[in-house]
């Protein structure tokens, strides 16, 4: 997969749990888990914006492109 989701790295940096992020962002745990494990096929701008606000970071901190 070319796009890597670094949500777990950012959570560790911010010392935040997935449950806390879920409550703050308003996205279900299962959906965040899908995102964290890289199973997600797409992410809405609104979700990305909410996560960036909660983690105080840029989209580039969460998503990373890697060549195969």
């Amino acid at each position, binding site marked *: 997969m070319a796009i890597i989701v670094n949500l777990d790295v950012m959570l560790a940096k911010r010392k935040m749990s997935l449950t806390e992020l879920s409550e703050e962002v308003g996205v279900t745990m299962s959906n965040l888990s899908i995102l964290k494990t890289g199973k*997600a*096929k*797409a*992410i*809405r701008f609104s979700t990305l914006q909410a996560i960036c606000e909660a983690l105080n970071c840029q989209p580039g901190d969460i998503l990373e492109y890697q060549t195969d």
Partner: protein
Amino acid sequence: MKLKKDWSLAHFLYYNVWIIITGLIVSFISINSTYLTGGISFFINAPYSDPMVQVDSEELITTDFLVNDEHYLMPIQVKGRFLVNNSESSFATKNLLLIVVRFLKMSILVAFFYLLARILKSVIKENPFDPLNSKRLLIMGGLLVFHAIFTFGHALFVADIFSSLQVDPTLSFKADFESVNSIFFGLLVMLLGFIFRKATEIHQEQKLTV
């Protein structure tokens, strides 16, 4: 999400499909029971009811006849002078083959309706976009195409039997191409299968959008 009420039609159809499957099997057994009990009969029931009568026809007539108590409405056309004697002995040799052909036709239909029942079951379970459903639709389409070809083959076979039984050489039996038209229905169902495959992909994608 409560969709139970919306899927009540699926419930209704699901149970109906099982009734159709049971009906197909029961009718197959009852039709062929005369063979199993040893009774062999052969009548040409129409266009005139008496098999011993001479029919002089100049027009094409769709036959409607009775073999082993099964009322055939085969797409066969008859033309010519019609004189049929008691032909039990010559028909008996091909009777088993006819049963095999009928069994295969019935099996195709049972398989078709079984797959339909499985699709309806997935709809009842509120999971119509099961990835298996597109495969099922593709197989169902293939079965319909195969059934249409098989029906034509069956008609050819029966026409061949009648040709071998004829007394008057001017009488001719030909299988009609009418049944082949249903190939298009099969292809249509296959097309639906391809559309369903795409729909399933979109549904999966939508489900994994965060």
